[in-house]
C-alpha cells in the first residue's frame, strides 16, 4: 500500500473541515476525488503536501509505511510526494530552471544520488518540456510570473515530469483551462502514469476525467467520503449534479 489515510480529522482556525477521511491508494492506481465547493478536497490535498495552516486532530496518514504527517513538506517531496497547486504561486526573480535545478539536486542528495551536471540537467528539462508542449523560453522566465492560467497548470505538470514523483496530487488542475490546454495537461499526466506511481486527481468537474481515466472515484462531501465507485460514478455525478449526493446524505440516518 502506497498511501493509507485513516479516520483523518483536520481543522483550520478551529473550523473542522475533514471529518473522518479513509482512503487507500496503491501503486499504479489513479483516484479521482470529486465534490462540491467547500467539501474539503483542497484541504485534503494541502494536508498531504504538508501545508502548515491545518491542524490534524485525529487519524493518521501512512505513506510507504511512514507517518507522513511527521515529515516536513520538503522531505515529503524528497520521498516522492508532489502537489500540483490549484493556484500556482508566482515567484518573481526565481527562474523555472533555478527552481527545478535546486529541487532536483536537493532530492537527489536526499536519496544519496550524485547531483546532475549542467548538461544532464538541461537534457532532462528538454525531454520533459516536450510532454506538455512547453516552450524552452519558459525555462529562463520567473516561476509562473505573467503566465496565463493554462501556462501555469502546464508548468505544474512539467515540474511533476521533471521531479518524477511516486504520489502526485493534482489539485483542480483543470480549473480555468480551455479545452486545448486541458488536453495538453491531461496528455502529459497520462504519459507520466505508470505502475511505479499513483495519482490523486482532485476535481470539481467530470470533464478532466474524460481524458485522465481514473480507476476509482470518490465523492467528498462535508469532510467525508460519502460514495466510492468506478469511473462511471463520475459520469453519474455529472448528470445528476451534487444535489443528488446532498439529498442522499440528508436521507441517511444520523
Amino acid at each position, binding site marked *: 500500500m502506497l498511501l493509507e489515510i485513516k479516520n483523518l480529522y483536520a481543522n483550520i482556525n478551529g473550523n473542522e473541515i475533514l471529518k473522518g477521511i479513509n482512503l487507500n491508494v496503491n501503486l499504479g492506481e489513479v483516484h479521482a476525488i470529486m465534490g462540491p465547493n467547500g467539501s474539503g478536497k483542497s484541504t485534503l490535498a494541502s494536508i498531504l*503536501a*504538508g*501545508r*502548515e495552516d491545518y491542524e490534524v486532530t485525529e487519524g493518521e496518514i501512512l505513506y510507504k509505511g511512514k507517518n507522513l504527517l511527521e515529515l*516536513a*513538506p*520538503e522531505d*515529503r*517531496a*524528497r520521498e516522492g510526494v*508532489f*502537489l500540483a*497547486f490549484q493556484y*500556482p*504561486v*508566482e*515567484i*518573481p*526573480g*526565481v527562474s523555472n530552471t*533555478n*527552481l*527545478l535545478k*535546486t*529541487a*532536483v539536486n*536537493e*532530492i537527489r542528495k*536526499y536519496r544519496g544520488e550524485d547531483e546532475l551536471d549542467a548538461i544532464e540537467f538541461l537534457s532532462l528539462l528538454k525531454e520533459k518540456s516536450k510532454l506538455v508542449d512547453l516552450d524552452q523560453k519558459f525555462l529562463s522566465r*520567473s*516561476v509562473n510570473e505573467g503566465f496565463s492560467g493554462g501556462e501555469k497548470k502546464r508548468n505544474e505538470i512539467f*515540474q511533476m515530469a521533471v*521531479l518524477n514523483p511516486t504520489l502526485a496530487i493534482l489539485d483542480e488542475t483543470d480549473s480555468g483551462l480551455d479545452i486545448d490546454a486541458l488536453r495538453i495537461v491531461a496528455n502529459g499526466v497520462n504519459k507520466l502514469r505508470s505502475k511505479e506511481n499513483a495519482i490523486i486527481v482532485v476535481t470539481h468537474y467530470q470533464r478532466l476525467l474524460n481524458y485522465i481515466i481514473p480507476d476509482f472515484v470518490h465523492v467528498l462531501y462535508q469532510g467525508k467520503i460519502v460514495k466510492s465507485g468506478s469511473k462511471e460514478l463520475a459520469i453519474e455525478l455529472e448528470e445528476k449534479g451534487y444535489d443528488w449526493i446532498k439529498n442522499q446524505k440528508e436521507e441517511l440516518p444520523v
Partner: protein
Amino acid sequence: MNQNQLTFKELCLKNFEEFEKKLNGEKQLPIKDFREKSIKHLSNLDLPTIKNEEWKYTNVAFLNKEIFKVAPTKPDISAEHIDKFLFDKLEHSLITFVNGIYDSNLSKLLDIPSGVEILSLSEAIKSNNSNLSKLLGSFLDDTNNFFTTLNSSFINDGALIFVPDGKIIEEPIHLIFYQNSVSGKSLIQPRNLFVIGKNSQVTIIEHYVSDTETEYFTNSVTEIYVDENGILDHIKLQEESFNSIHIGRMDISQKRNTNFRSHLISTGAKFSRNEFNSRFDGEYAESMLNGLFMITGEQFFDAHTLIDHAKPHCNSYEHYKGILQGNSKGVFNGKVMVRQDAQKTNAFQENNTILLSDSAVMNTKPQLEIFADDVKCSHGATVGKLNDEAKFYLKSRGISEEAATAMLIHAFASDVITSIKIEALRDYLEKIISRKFN
C-alpha cells in the same frame, strides 16, 4: 584636559589646529582658506538632533561620547587586503585610499583619454590643480549641514575625476576606501569631486570597505556635476566593519539631456547614514536611484534621498530595497520635490523592505512635494516578511527551508542587482548575498 568631557563638535574644533600643523607646505594654497572658512562656519553649526525632521529617526548624539583621531595615519597595507574587494574579470582603473589617504602602490590607472584627469585630491592640492580650486564646493549646499562642513574643514584627500567634453571612458573607475584603524578610532573624511563634461560618459564605483573588527568613523562627501548630454553610472558599495560609523553624502547636479544612474548597495556598518541629493538643473534629464541594503545584528542604516525636479521634462526613478535581520534598524526617507516650473515631470519612487526577524525595525517615509500641475508621480512603500506561500511552494518541490529562504531573498534583491550594467559587479554582489543568506 580630558577629551572625554568634550562634545563631538568641541573635539573637532579643538583638534583643527593640530590637524593643520601636520599639513606642511600648504600655507599659501587656496585650500587653506577653504578649510578655515569651513571651520569658522562649523563653529556656528550644531550636531543635528532628532528634533530636526531630517534626522527624526537617526540619532547621532552618541558621537559626543566618543573620541576620534581627526588626523588619521596610513599604515602600510599589502595588496591582499584589497584584492578580495576587486571584481573578477573586470578591466578597470583602481584608486585606493587607506584611512582616507591615497596609496599609489595599491592604485593602477589604465590608459585614459587625453585631457581626462583622474587623481587624488592630495596630489591636486600640491600641484595647485586649477579645476580643483575652480570647482570644489560648487555643486553642494553646506549652509546647514554639520557633517559636510566638517568634511570641508578637514579636507585633505579623496578622488578627483575631471572628464572634459566628448570623452568616453570605457573601463569603470573603481575607488576603494579601505579603513584599517589600528590604534584608536580615526575620523576619516574622504572628499570626492567628479565633473563630467558635455557628451562624455564614465562609470565610477565608490567602494567603502574594512576588515571586520576595526573601529572608525567615515564622513565622506561626494560632489558630482554632469554637463549636457553626459552619462554617469555611479555605484556606491558599502561593506564595512560592524564597529564602524559611516556618514556619507553625495550631491549631484544634472544639466540638460543627462543620464545619471546610481546604485547604493550596502551591508552597512554599525551606524550608517547615506544621503543622496539629486538636482535637475536642465530639461530632459533622467536619473535612477536604486538601492539595496542588507543589515543584521545591531546595525543601523539610514538612506536619505532628495530628488529635486527643478526643471521640466525630467524623469526620475527611485527604488530602494532593504533586508533586515536580527535587531537591526533601517530608515528610508525619500523626498521627491517637483517645483512649480517642472511641468511634464515623471517621478516614480518606491521602497520595499523585508523583515526576516520579529525584532528588526524599519521606518519608511516616502514623500512627494508637488508644486507643478502637469506631472506624473507615484510613490509607495511596503514592509513585510518573505512570502509564506512562495516559500511553501518551493519546499513542496523538495527545497529546504534555508535554501527556499535564500532563493526568495536573491529574488527580492534581483531587480536592483540586475539593473546594474557591469556583469562582474553583479556576480560580486550575488556572492555577497549568498555569503550572507545561504
